[in-house]
C-alpha cells in the first residue's frame, strides 16, 4: 500500500489540482503546474480528477512499489520505465509488487506528472493534498520529496483501468491512450496564445506589437511562481504605480524594468504590476514546460475563442473518460 522513493530526483513533489477557496487569505492555487496533464493521467488509472499524484522536474525519480497498481504519466519529454520496459506517455501501465518505476527528465528540462491508482494518501490541508513548497505545508510534510521517503497509497476505488485479462496480455503498457497533444506537452519553440490584459492600454503601441511579434527567452530565475522572460523592454505610457489586484496563473505582468513575467501555478493571489496579457487556459500546459533558455512567442486570440477552446477541451475530456471506462474492471 505504499511506494518508497528510492531516488527523489530534483524538485519532485506531491500535487493535485490545487487549493481553491483560500485566495481571500492569500493562499496560491498551486497544485500540478499542468493540472490537465495530471487529470489525464488520473483518468488513465481510473482515479478521480482530484487524486494526488507526483510532479517530477529534473533528474531521475525511482519509485519502488509494494503492491499491484495501475500508473500513467503525461508531460515533457521524459523517459519512463517500469523495470526495463518503457511506458509511453499517456498510456495505462501495469505495476506488480516489487517493481521499480523510473522517470528520467530530458537534459533540456521540463516537468511530468505521474498518477498511481488510488492516489497518494497525504492529509488534506485547506482542502488540498498539493504541496505548497514556499509555504511549507500540504503534500508530503510540506516539502519536496527526498530519497527514502515512503508515500502511502490510498485504496483503489471500486474500479481499475485494465482487466486481469488485459494485464496478462499487455504486461507493461496498455495499447489505449490519451490524445498525443495531451500526453506530450514538452515541445520547444512554442507559440503561446494570449488574450489582452486589463492594462493593455497602459503600454506603448511599440510594446503591444513587440509582445506579439518578438521572441522572448525564459531566464534562469524562473520557478513554479513564474517564468521570467527576457526580450525587448515593454514600455508603459503611464508609469504610475497601480493598486494591487487579483492575478492568476497565466497572467503576463510587467514590472518597471519592462521584462514580462508569465505567472504559473504558485503565483501570488494579488499583485501590483500592470497586466499586459493572459495566457489562455488551454495553453497553460505549454507554459508549464517553459525552461530557462527556451524561446517563447505570443499570439493574440479573442476571449470568446479562448473560452470556446476550453469548453471544447472539456467536452473532449468527458468523452475520453467515457471511452476509458470500457476498460474499467
Amino acid at each position, binding site marked *: 500500500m505504499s511506494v518508497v522513493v528510492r531516488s527523489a530526483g530534483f524538485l519532485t513533489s506531491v500535487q493535485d489540482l490545487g487549493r*481553491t*477557496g*483560500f*485566495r*481571500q*487569505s*492569500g*493562499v*496560491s492555487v498551486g497544485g500540478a503546474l499542468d493540472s490537465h496533464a495530471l487529470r489525464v493521467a488520473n483518468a488513465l488509472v481510473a482515479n478521480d480528477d482530484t487524486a494526488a499524484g507526483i510532479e517530477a522536474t529534473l533528474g531521475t525519480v525511482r519509485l519502488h512499489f509494494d503492491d499491484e497498481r495501475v500508473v500513467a504519466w503525461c508531460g515533457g519529454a521524459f523517459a519512463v520505465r517500469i523495470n526495463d520496459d518503457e511506458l509511453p506517455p499517456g498510456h495505462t501501465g501495469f505495476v506488480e509488487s516489487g517493481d521499480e518505476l523510473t522517470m528520467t527528465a530530458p537534459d533540456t528540462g521540463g516537468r511530468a506528472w505521474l498518477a498511481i491508482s488510488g492516489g497518494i494518501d497525504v492529509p488534506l*490541508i*485547506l482542502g488540498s493534498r498539493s504541496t*505548497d513548497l*514556499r*509555504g*511549507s*505545508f*500540504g503534500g508530503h510534510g510540506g516539502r519536496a520529496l527526498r530519497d527514502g521517503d515512503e508515500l502511502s497509497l490510498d485504496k483503489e476505488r471500486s474500479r481499475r483501468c485494465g482487466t486481469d485479462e488485459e494485464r496478462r496480455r499487455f504486461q507493461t503498457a496498455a495499447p489505449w491512450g490519451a490524445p498525443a497533444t495531451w500526453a506530450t506537452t514538452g515541445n520547444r519553440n512554442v507559440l503561446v496564445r494570449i*488574450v489582452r*490584459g*486589463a492594462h493593455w492600454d497602459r503600454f506603448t503601441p511599440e510594446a503591444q506589437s513587440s509582445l506579439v511579434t518578438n521572441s522572448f527567452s525564459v531566464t534562469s*530565475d524562473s520557478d513554479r*511562481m513564474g517564468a521570467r522572460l527576457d526580450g525587448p523592454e515593454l514600455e508603459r505610457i503611464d508609469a504610475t*504605480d497601480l*493598486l*494591487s*489586484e*487579483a*492575478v*492568476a496563473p*497565466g*497572467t503576463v505582468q510587467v*514590472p*518597471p*524594468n519592462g521584462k514580462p513575467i508569465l505567472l504559473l501555478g504558485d503565483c*501570488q*493571489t*494579488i*499583485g*501590483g504590476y500592470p*497586466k499586459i496579457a*493572459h*495566457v*489562455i*487556459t488551454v495553453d497553460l500546459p505549454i507554459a508549464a514546460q517553459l525552461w530557462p533558455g527556451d524561446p517563447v512567442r505570443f499570439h493574440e486570440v479573442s*476571449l*470568446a475563442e*479562448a*473560452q470556446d477552446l*476550453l*469548453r471544447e477541451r*472539456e467536452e473532449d475530456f468527458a468523452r475520453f473518460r467515457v471511452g476509458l471506462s470500457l476498460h474499467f474492471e
Partner: protein
Amino acid sequence: MRIEPLGDSALIVRVADHFDPETSSNAVLAAVRQIEAVAMSGVIELAPAYTTIGVFFDPARSGSFGELKATIEHALQTSLEPARPRAGGETVIEVPVCYEDEFAPDLNDVEQHTGLSQDEIIRRHSDATYRVACVGFTPGFPYLSGLPSELATPRRASPRKEIPVGAVAIGGTQTGIYPRKSPGGWNIIGRTPLRLFDVQRESPALFHAGDQVRFRQISRSEFEKSLA
C-alpha cells in the same frame, strides 16, 4: 463600477475608481457579500483587493463573460441587510516591529526619497493606524491602507528574489508585512516576530480584510525574546 475580463477564467469587478481609505474597503466588502449571495454556477471563489474583486470561474460550467457580468451587475444593485459588526467592535491588532539597521535594508532609500530622517520615518510609521484592505500576494500577507502619504516610496525597479519572514515594507502608497520568505519589490524598513500564517491554527491567517492594525517599535532584544 466596471467589470473586465481577467484572462479566460476570471473577471475583475472594479468597485471604485480610486482608493479612499475611509470608504473603499467597506464598499468592496459589501460587494463581496452581494456577489456571494447570488448562486452563479461555475464560480469558484472571490479575491477582494483595495478597490476590486477578482471573480474566478470555470468557463466550462459557467455562463459567458457577458452573462456573468450581467448577473454581477444585478447582484450589486440588490441591497442586503448591513453586515452585523463583530462582537467587541473592530479588531485592533498590535504588531511589534524592530526597525534596527539589519532588519531595514531599504530605510536609506525611503530616507532619500521622502527627505525625512530615519527616526522620523519610524515615528510616523508606528504612530498611524492602518486598516487591512485585503489579504493576498502570499498566505496571510496584509495589504494595509493608512500609510501617511509622506512615507510613500515607489517599489524597487527590479523585485528582490528573497525577502525574509516578518519583513515590514513600503511599496508605493501601501505598507505590508511578509508572512514568509518570498520575492517582492517593496522597500523593507523593519521586521516583526509575529506569525502571520499557520495552517495549524483554526483561522490560518492572522489578518482579515477590515481589521485595524498598529505598529509598535521594539528593540532587537525584545524581537529575539518574542521569537523564542
